[in-house]
C-alpha cells in the first residue's frame, strides 16, 4: 500500500519541544511543504554558525532559537525543516555568527536578528507611519505568506513596446489626498478604484514607484519650518526585494498585502493596463558603516556589498552603499527576485533605478559585458518583460545611448527630457537635436530602434509639467536642506513670473506650454511616459525633489481635474491621437526614403517654407511630415501627418507641403488656441480653408491630418 508519509519529511531532531530535520538547500527562503513542515534555507559564505529565531507575530521575544547543526549545512547554505509551526502566526529571522573584521569586509554580529533576503513578506511596518516600537529587538521580521491566488486566467499583457503609453505613479501619492474620494486612500486597493480615470486618460501602462518593502521612517527628521515629520516617502531604499510594502496595502495590518497587490494587477490587466515596477537594485536601506543591521550586512557583508580595499562601502548610489550586483550570488538573487515578480505577480516589466550600477564589477569598474544585464536579457521567464534602465548612476557613469542592451533593454532617455525642455523655452541651436528626439533618437539608438527610447519630459525626479512652466528655480526649502538638494539644471522657464500669478496672459502661456510639451511627447517615436498628475496640471510648488514629504506636496489633488479640465481634455485627446495613428509608433527607425514608391519619403522635414527645414543655429521653427503609407514599416495604412513647431515668440506663416493624391489637410490641434478650440476629437479634424499655408502662433504647435 502506498502511504503519504515521506521518510525525508519526518523529524530527526528536537529542541525546546520543536521537532526538525535537515532541510533542502533549494529554494532559498522559507517554503511550506505539503507534509506540514517549513523549509528554511539561507546562505552565508564566511559565517561559522547560524541560528533560526522564531517569534509569534508581534511578540517581543522569540519562542524558540534553533542553532543549525553542522550536518544541516550544504556548501554555504544552512537548511532546516521545522515541524508543527503555525506559519500564519509566525515571524522568523537568523542570527549569524562569524568574524567582525571590517577591514576584510566581515561585519558579523551574532546578537543581531536578521531578516531573510528571500522572505515574501515583512512584518514591522504593517501600517504606513504607525509608530514603531523603537526598542524592538527585531524590527523588520520575515513572514510566510499564502502563495496561492486565483488569477482567473490572467496573463501579462505583452503589449508591443512601441504601443505603450506609460504613466509613472506613486502608490500613496496617487490617492492619499481626500479629494481622491476613495475608500482606503493611499493603497493598492485605491488604485483599483481609479482605474476608470486611467482608462479615460487612455494610458495603457502604469509604472509604480518602488513598492518593495522599505522603511518610511528611515532618516526621518523634523521640517525646521513647520515641525512636520519628513520621511522616506518615495521609497528608493529597499529592505527586502521579494516583499511588497505592507504599508501600501489597506490589508497590510492583516498581512494580506500580497493578495491585495495581485488583485490590483489582475484588475489592471483586465482593463488593458500593464504594470511596470520601478526596482532599486543599486543599494539597500542598510546605509554605510554606521547604518543598521537589517539583513544583508549581517548575513554576508562582503558578498552583498561593493567594498573598498579597506572594507568601506563604495557609494555609487549616493545613499551610503552599493549592492554588489555582479557578484554571482547577488546576481542570482536579483534574477530569482525578478522571476518571482514576473511569474507570481504577473508583472509586465521593470524599470531599473540607477541601472548603470548593474554594469559595474565588484570593485566598481564599468564592464563591457555585464553578466547581470545579460542574464536578465536572456532569461526564459523574463523573456516577455519590458526591461528599462535608468542608464546613469550617482558615481558619474552616464550611459544614455550606450547602456548594454542585448537587443531588448530600453532606457529612460534623459537627453530627450533635456532637449525638449530647452526647445520649449526657445533656446537656440537645438533644431537638429529636436529632429533626432522626435524620431526616437536614432543618434543615440541607431542600432536599437526607437523603442529603446523611453521619452519623458517630466518624472518623479524634478519639476512637474506645470512647475516646469511656472518656475525658473527650484524651491526646496521645505526639504530642510537649505535648498541645496535637488537638481539645478531644470531647463525650465516660468513664462515671466516666478510661481503663481493672476496675470491672465502668463497663465494662458503656461497652459499653452504644457500643451506643447504633451504634444511633442505624444508625437515622438519611442515610448512616451507621462508623470502622474501632469494630465491635470499638478504642482509641487516649485519643489523638484519631494522625496521626503508625506503631504500635499506629493499627494495628487483630484480637484485639479475640474480646475484644469482643459488640460485633461487635451491630454486625453492627444493620447487618443497617438493610439489612432500607427505612423507615430514605429518599431524601426525611419529610412528617409520612399521605399513604398508613393511619392513621399517616410519622414520629411520642413520649415516656414515647405521642404526647406531651417537647421541654422538661430532657428526656432521645425516641421515634419510622416507618410501614412509608411506606417509601421509600410505594413499598415495610416493618414499622412504634418506637425509644425514654432518656438519663435511671434506667429509665423508656414507653407504646407503638397501631398500626392486628392486628400486635404485637416487641423487636429493648435496649442495657441483657447480651450475648446485647441484640439479636436480624433476623426473630427476640421478642413483647412487654405491648403497651402497656415499661420502658427508664437510658441505653439499645430498638427494636421491629410485625409
Amino acid at each position: 500500500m502506498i502511504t503519504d508519509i515521506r521518510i525525508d519529511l519526518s523529524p530527526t531532531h528536537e529542541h525546546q519541544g520543536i521537532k526538525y530535520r535537515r532541510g533542502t538547500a533549494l529554494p532559498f527562503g522559507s517554503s511550506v511543504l505539503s507534509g506540514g513542515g517549513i523549509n528554511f534555507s539561507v546562505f552565508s559564505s564566511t559565517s561559522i554558525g547560524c541560528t533560526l529565531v522564531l517569534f509569534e507575530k508581534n511578540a517581543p521575544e522569540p519562542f524558540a532559537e534553533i542553532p543549525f547543526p553542522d550536518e544541516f549545512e550544504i556548501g554555504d547554505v544552512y537548511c532546516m525543516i521545522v515541524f508543527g509551526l503555525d506559519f500564519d502566526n509566525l515571524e522568523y529571522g537568523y542570527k549569524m555568527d562569524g568574524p567582525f573584521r571590517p577591514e576584510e569586509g566581515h561585519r558579523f554580529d551574532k546578537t543581531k536578528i536578521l531578516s531573510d533576503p528571500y522572505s515574501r513578506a515583512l512584518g514591522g511596518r504593517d501600517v504606513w507611519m504607525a509608530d514603531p516600537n523603537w526598542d524592538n529587538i527585531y524590527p523588520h521580521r520575515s513572514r510566510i505568506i499564502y502563495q496561492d491566488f486565483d488569477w482567473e486566467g490572467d496573463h501579462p499583457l505583452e503589449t508591443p513596446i512601441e504601443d505603450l503609453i506609460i504613466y509613472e505613479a506613486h502608490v500613496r501619492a496617487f490617492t492619499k489626498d481626500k479629494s481622491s474620494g476613495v475608500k482606503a486612500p493611499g493603497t493598492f486597493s485605491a488604485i483599483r478604484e481609479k482605474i476608470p480615470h486611467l482608462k479615460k486618460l487612455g494610458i495603457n501602462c502604469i509604472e509604480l514607484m518602488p513598492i518593495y518593502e522599505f522603511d518610511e521612517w528611515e532618516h526621518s527628521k523634523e521640517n525646521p519650518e513647520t515641525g512636520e515629520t519628513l520621511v522616506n516617502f518615495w521609497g528608493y531604499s529597499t529592505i527586502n526585494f521579494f516583499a511588497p510594502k505592507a504599508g501600501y496595502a489597506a490589508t497590510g495590518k492583516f498581512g494580506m498585502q500580497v493578495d491585495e497587490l495581485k488583485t490590483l494587477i489582475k484588475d489592471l490587466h483586465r482593463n488593458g493596463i500593464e504594470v511596470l515596477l520601478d526596482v532599486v537594485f543599486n543599494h539597500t536601506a542598510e546605509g554605510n558603516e554606521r547604518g543598521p543591521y537589517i539583513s544583508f550586512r549581517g548575513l554576508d557583508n562582503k558578498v552583498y556589498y561593493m567594498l573598498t580595499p579597506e572594507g568601506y562601502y563604495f557609494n555609487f548610489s549616493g545613499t551610503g552603499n552599493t549592492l554588489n550586483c555582479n557578484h554571482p550570488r547577488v546576481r542570482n538573487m536579483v534574477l530569482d527576485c525578478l522571476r518571482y515578480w514576473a511569474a507570481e505577480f504577473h508583472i509586465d516589466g521593470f524599470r531599473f533605478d540607477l541601472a548603470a550600477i548593474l554594469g559595474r564589477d565588484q570593485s566598481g569598474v564599468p564592464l563591457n559585458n555585464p553578466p547581470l544585464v545579460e542574464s536578465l536579457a536572456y532569461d526564459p521567464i523574463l523573456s516577455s518583460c519590458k526591461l528599462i534602465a535608468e542608464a546613469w548612476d550617482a558615481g558619474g557613469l552616464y550611459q544614455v545611448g550606450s547602456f548594454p542592451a542585448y537587443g531588448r533593454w530600453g532606457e529612460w532617455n534623459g537627453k530627450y527630457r533635456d532637449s525638449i525642455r530647452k526647445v520649449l523655452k526657445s533656446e537656440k541651436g537645438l533644431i537638429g537635436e529636436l529632429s533626432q528626439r522626435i524620431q526616437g533618437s536614432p543618434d543615440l539608438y541607431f542600432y536599437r530602434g526607437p523603442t529603446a527610447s523611453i521619452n519623458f519630459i517630466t518624472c518623479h525626479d524634478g519639476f512637474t509639467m506645470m512647475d516646469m512652466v511656472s518656475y525658473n528655480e527650484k524651491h526646496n526649502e521645505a526639504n530642510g536642506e537649505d535648498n541645496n538638494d535637488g537638481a539645478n539644471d531644470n531647463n525650465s522657464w516660468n513664462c515671466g513670473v516666478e510661481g503663481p500669478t493672476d496675470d491672465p496672459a502668463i497663465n494662458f502661456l503656461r497652459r499653452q506650454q504644457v500643451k506643447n510639451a504633451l504634444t511633442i511627447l505624444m508625437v515622438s517615436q519611442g515610448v512616451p511616459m507621462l508623470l502622474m498628475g501632469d494630465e491635470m496640471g499638478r504642482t509641487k510648488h516649485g519643489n523638484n525633489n519631494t522625496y521626503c514629504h508625506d503631504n500635499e506636496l506629493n499627494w495628487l489633488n483630484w480637484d485639479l481635474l475640474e480646475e484644469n479640465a482643459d488640460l485633461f481634455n487635451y491630454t486625453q485627446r492627444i493620447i487618443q491621437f497617438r493610439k489612432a495613428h500607427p505612423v507615430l509608433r514605429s518599431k524601426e527607425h525611419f529610412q528617409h526614403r520612399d521605399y513604398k514608391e508613393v511619392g513621399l519619403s517616410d519622414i520629411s522635414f520642413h520649415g516656414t517654407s515647405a521642404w526647406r527645414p531651417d537647421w541654422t543655429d538661430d532657428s526656432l521653427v521645425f516641421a515634419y511630415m510622416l507618410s501614412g503609407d509608411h506606417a509601421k514599416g509600410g505594413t499598415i495604412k495610416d493618414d499622412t501627418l504634418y506637425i509644425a513647431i514654432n518656438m519663435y515668440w511671434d506667429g509665423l506663416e508656414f507653407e504646407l507641403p503638397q501631398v500626392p493624391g486628392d486628400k486635404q489637410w485637416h487641423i487636429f490641434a493648435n496649442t495657441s488656441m483657447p480651450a475648446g478650440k485647441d484640439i479636436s476629437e480624433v476623426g473630427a479634424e476640421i478642413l483647412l480653408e487654405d491648403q497651402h499655408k497656415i499661420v502658427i502662433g508664437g510658441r505653439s504647435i499645430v498638427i494636421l491630418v491629410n485625409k
Partner: protein
Amino acid sequence: MKITISTVDEVMVLSVKGSIDSQTAPEFQTAILAQIETDNNLILDLRENEFISSAGLRVLLIVYRSSKITSGKLVLVGASEEIREVMHNTGFSKFFTFADTLEEGIKIIK
C-alpha cells in the same frame, strides 16, 4: 471557533462563532465541505464571527470553487464591514453574495 448547523426554511445554515484563522481553518474547511456535499445551497452565518484571516478566506475560495462546479449558491450573512472590506481589497468578495439578514439570505437562495 464554534460551528453550528441548522435548517431554516429548508435552507442549510452553517453558523460560525469566534474567529476563523490558521488554527481553526482546517476544522472550518472540513465542516463546510461536508455540508456542501449534502446540499450545495448554503448560508454561512457570520453574525457572531469575529474575524476571518487569510487562511479562512482561502477556505471560502475552495468552497466557492467546489460549489461553482456543482452550480450551488453560497450566501454570506452578517459579515462585518471590516471583513467585507478585507474581502473587497483582496479580491475575494467578487466570488460571494452577501446578505445582511438571514431572511434576506434565504430569499437569495430560494
